[in-house]
């Protein structure tokens, strides 16, 4: 082919391709489906088939109190099938499956709840799912909470972002946790409250709850309070030395625990269990401090404007300490009212030690304040004196002027 012919061939070819566009071809062949999205999922149907193993397990082995040896083997198969099923539905990225998958969280099999969280994460939750997802974030098993947190982070929307920020998993493990009994720490729990696992830790003296339905915990604590309500900032200002002492005492306790750990000879790393336990102990010393700081931060976007009721105030050394109090707030992410019971976890003696240093600081601060007050008063007196002098001078000048005018006969 000559160069001139090639040129014509390409021009002609391009023109033909331009006129016969691919969409034109496909649309001409199927006018009824133009613009239609592929329907990947079948509609809900009551007669969706159920795997015989799943059906048998649910019939013979599900429910409380079933302790049949054959169920153990069946349970493994049941879990494997369901995990595969959850992966199948998750891979469709079809939102219509989310409600069905969410119901798997009502099963006791931890692996299934984790797989369900992964499946919803694959589909991608949205803000409209948030009410359904909130309870899932408070599973009794730490590893499920971790999976749910990951699932939430895969979603899109401001409500989900807020929920993600609020639900930071603090622990790991597959053993279900039990809500701690606040009464053991001398604290009353408001009726119709749900315990929040990740926002509670008795070791740092914090137990958190959300109010169920429309109950208002403020009414309950108002009746029990010795003092309050205070705005959180007001409380922090009024009891700043007490809170500072407590923090200092905690630091000392943490340091002591760290020193104790140094004395213990680390186990042989080949003994994996002992070594893991040892490492966990080391990590937990620092983690507690961090978790306390996190729980006491009360970011306004998550908790609104908290208020505080003091439930017990006790004299330790030379100061009176709020040893038991409750912080009430709006759980913005959970769309509910919430509260955190707080109590002092350090012994009185440690507080007294910390107090000695802070008392000196307080005295210094008082002296400084006194000095400031005196200086301020002196300044004010000086100012008023100057003002007086000015007034007198003005008066004198005016009088002199008037006299002069008189003398001159004006």
């Amino acid at each position, binding site marked *: 082919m000559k160069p001139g012919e090639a040129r014509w061939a*390409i*021009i002609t070819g*391009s023109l033909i*391709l331009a006129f*016969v566009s*691919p*969409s034109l*071809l*496909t649309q001409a*062949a*199927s006018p*009824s*489906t133009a613009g*239609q999205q*592929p*329907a*990947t999922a*079948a509609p809900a*149907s009551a007669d*969706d*088939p*159920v*795997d015989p193993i*799943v059906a048998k397990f*649910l019939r013979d082995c*599900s*429910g409380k109190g079933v302790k049949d040896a054959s169920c153990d083997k069946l349970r493994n198969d049941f879990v494997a*099938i*369901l995990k*595969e*099923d*959850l992966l*199948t*539905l998750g891979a*469709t990225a079809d939102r219509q*499956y989310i409600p*069905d*998958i969410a*119901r*798997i*969280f*009502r*099963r006791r099999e931890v692996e299934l709840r984790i797989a369900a969280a992964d499946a919803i994460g694959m589909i991608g939750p949205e803000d409209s799912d948030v*009410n359904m997802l*909130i*309870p*899932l974030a*408070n*599973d*009794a*098993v730490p590893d499920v909470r971790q999976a749910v947190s990951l699932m939430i982070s895969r979603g899109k929307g401001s409500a989900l972002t807020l929920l993600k920020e609020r639900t930071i998993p603090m622990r790991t493990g597959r053993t*279900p946790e039990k*809500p701690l009994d606040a009464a053991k720490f001398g604290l009353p729990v408001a009726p119709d409250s*749900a315990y929040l*696992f990740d926002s509670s830790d008795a070791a740092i003296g914090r137990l958190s709850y*959300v109010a*169920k*339905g429309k109950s208002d915990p403020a009414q309950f604590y108002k009746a029990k309070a010795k003092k309050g309500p205070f705005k959180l900032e007001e409380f922090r200002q009024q009891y700043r030395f007490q809170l500072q002492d407590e923090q200092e005492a905690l630091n000392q306790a943490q340091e002591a625990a760290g020193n104790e750990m140094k004395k213990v000879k680390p186990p042989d790393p080949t003994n994996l269990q002992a070594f893991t336990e040892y490492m966990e102990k080391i990590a937990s010393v620092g983690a507690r401090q961090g978790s306390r700081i996190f729980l006491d931060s009360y970011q306004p976007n998550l908790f609104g404007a908290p208020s505080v009721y003091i439930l017990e105030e006790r004299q330790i050394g030379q100061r009176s300490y709020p040893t038991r109090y409750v912080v009430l707030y709006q759980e913005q992410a959970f*769309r*509910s009212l919430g509260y955190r019971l707080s109590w002092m976890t350090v012994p009185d003696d440690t507080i007294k030690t910390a107090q000695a240093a802070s008392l000196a600081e307080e005295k210094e601060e008082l002296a400084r304040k006194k000095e400031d007050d005196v200086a301020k008063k002196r300044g004010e007196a000086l100012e008023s004196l100057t003002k007086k002098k000015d007034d007198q001078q003005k008066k004198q000048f005016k009088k002199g002027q008037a006299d002069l005018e008189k003398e001159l006969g004006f």
Partner: protein
Amino acid sequence: MAILRMPLWGLSLYIVMLLWPPSSLAGPEKALSAYAEMCTDDMGKLYKQVEALESLDNLNNEAKKASVSGKAQEFINKSLPKFKERCPTEANSIKDLENGHYFQKMAAAREKRKKARGDIKATGDNPDSESFEDLSLQQ
């Protein structure tokens, strides 16, 4: 005047062809790669259309409890020859559409989803979680 219009239009087309930007001539490889890309895009669209129609057929057939709808096959019969004519290099890639394997694959995937949903629904209907009480924040 109308007699003059036709030759004028032809002349204009001729001039346009002559003045066609030489870029398409400068690189025949470029044109070929654009052509290949277009064929791949086209093939993707073809599969999506088949998938959508097959789902629709399935819904219709399930509703009527009979195999009466075959829009996907009709579509394949119509558009496949055109596609093969335009993109002969992709003829091998769409074999599964011709021999029906793609339909089988879609049907198998649908059955798998149905079974998965059936299992999950049945399991969700049998709650036995010990921590169920703690999940009821909003109730």
